[in-house]
């Protein structure tokens, strides 16, 4: 075995050893060595390896069909259509993603109000184990935190008001109701801030707790109303409409049509190929008839208990036969898995040539 082959086989074996040990080692032992909590992260690491291959398909299609177009080989127009659809889909899906991310970042600025209020509350209630992290080591004083909160909320409210004046929404009744909801929560939040600014924040008294809880609650209502308005706006643009045309118009309909061809092919096959010539084919035919008639409305017109007969056929003889088939397939699958893990399944994938 050359060194490259040895390296590939070692990596293949090491790739599997983690999951094998995770399977056989008791959970309590995994907890002691700290693997239990880290397991989702480690598993994701393995998925990342496969996920990095996302570009392979695109590169192959571009190389294959691109050369058809460049050298104007036979059928190059079809390749050009494929490449244009591929690039359009990649472009529109990416643009849609970036757009949604931009809206989410904008919304997160509002959601932070509620989250931060709750954090101030929980950190002040449990001073020894605060959830927030401060690079300075110690968390700022309560008074400073509340002041930072009020300043931030006023900033955000101003931003949203300006954006609101610039005109979001499609003018529908639903949109107007949402604006009313946003306005109502804005007034409530502003009133909360006025009260927050008038009381002392030396300590977290019960009345102060209630005040912060109110800020959090109204900020939540405000954020929800604003997010619905912004999401509706985001759905109206050109990019989402292009996405609808590409996915619902082209992909869904053409995919469904491609597979619907099988519906007529199976009819032709039923006429041309299903011959009752032996005892075994008769059995097959009878079972097929029972299943077909048992699942349609008209089956009952032929025999009242046809659905029950179909159910029995599937539950008893079919399940028993299928389980036997499945046992065979599962054992074969297990052997294949072991052979893959130990690099004895296929030489082409484990030899360093």
């Amino acid at each position, binding site marked *: 075995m050359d060194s490259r082959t040895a390296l*590939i086989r070692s990596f*293949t074996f*090491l*790739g*599997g*050893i983690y*999951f094998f040990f995770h399977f056989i080692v008791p959970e309590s032992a995994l907890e002691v060595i700290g693997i239990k909590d880290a397991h989702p*992260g480690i598993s*994701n690491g393995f998925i990342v390896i*496969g996920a990095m*291959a996302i*570009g*392979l398909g695109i590169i192959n299609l571009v190389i294959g069909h691109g050369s058809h177009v460049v050298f104007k080989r036979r059928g190059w127009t079809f390749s050009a*259509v494929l490449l244009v*659809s591929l690039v359009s889909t*990649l472009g529109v899906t990416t643009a849609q*993603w970036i757009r949604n991310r931009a809206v989410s970042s904008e919304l997160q600025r509002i959601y932070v109000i509620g989250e*931060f209020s709750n954090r101030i509350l929980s950190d002040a209630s449990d001073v020894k184990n605060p959830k*927030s992290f401060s690079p300075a080591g110690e968390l700022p004083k309560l008074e*400073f935190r509340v002041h*930072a*909160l009020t*300043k*931030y909320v006023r900033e955000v409210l101003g931003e949203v008001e300006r954006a609101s004046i610039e005109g979001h929404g499609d003018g529908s009744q639903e949109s107007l109701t949402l604006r009313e909801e946003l306005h109502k929560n804005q007034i409530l939040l502003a009133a909360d801030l006025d009260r927050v600014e008038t009381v002392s924040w030396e300590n977290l008294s019960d009345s102060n707790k209630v005040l912060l809880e109110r800020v959090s609650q109204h900020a939540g209502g405000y954020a929800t109303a604003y997010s619905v308005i912004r999401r509706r706006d985001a759905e109206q643009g050109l990019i989402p*409409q292009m996405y*609808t045309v590409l*996915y619902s*118009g*082209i*992909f869904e*309909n*053409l995919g*469904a*049509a491609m597979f*619907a*061809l099988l*519906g007529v*092919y*199976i009819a032709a096959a039923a006429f041309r190929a299903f011959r009752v010539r032996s*005892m*075994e084919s008769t*059995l097959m035919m009878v*079972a097929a008839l*029972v*299943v*077909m008639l048992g699942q349609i409305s008209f089956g009952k017109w032929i025999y009242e208990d046809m659905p029950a007969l179909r159910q029995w*056929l599937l*539950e008893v*003889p079919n399940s*028993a*036969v299928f*389980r036997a*088939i499945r046992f*065979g397939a599962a054992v074969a*699958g297990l052997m294949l*898995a072991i052979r*893959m*893990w130990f690099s004895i399944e296929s030489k082409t994938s484990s*030899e*360093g040539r």
Partner: protein
Amino acid sequence: MAQSELLSIILGGIGTIAIFSFLIKENYFYRIFEHMFIGVAAGIGPILVLRDFLWPQIVEPMLGYTITAYPDGTFSAEYQPLYFLYVFPMILGMLYYSMYSRKHAWLSKIAIGVSLGASGALAIRGFFAEVIPQIASSFKPILVWRDGGFQAVESVNNLLFVAILFLVLNYFFFTLGRTGSVQSRTASWGRPLLMVCFGAFFGSTVMARLALLVERVQFISRDWISAIINVTGGTF
């Protein structure tokens, strides 16, 4: 109805007719839409891997973007440097692209190997998780007594189930048979039983295939025609 929805239906209808034209014979119209379908289908997956997995579950935690910065200079959580270890599987995954270099193509087998090894070991776990309950439920009571009485129908069904299971398993034991043994003499009994199962399969397959045809006919005869009438203002 939004304009994009209307356009989708009209385009979808034209595409469906183009694909169905293959039933007459392969033609230019069909091939154009066939390639369009492949192009769109190939373009969806890669962005989704980035958008729904690599970005939110790997890159963002690695760069600390999942941590919220509060207005007072504090943060929702402390950054976990361990997330930076994701760089290693990323580098390993990048080896896939070495397959485009004749000299370094063998390196891509390392990435393939790790994925194969992990899948193999996981499949071992999956085997036990799936098969053990199957084995357990195959041991059915042949005489069922419940609610103070003998359940004749259930008993007969259980007996049939177990008998069929063993007969079909016996049919697949190609290595054990010796001419004249009970096993070899009863092996052929599994065949007609398999035919019953395949018949059930055929019956079910017919329903699945026809459902696709029904859906398309429904789309053309209802949605598409309505959209055309809508666009032409009823003059169609």
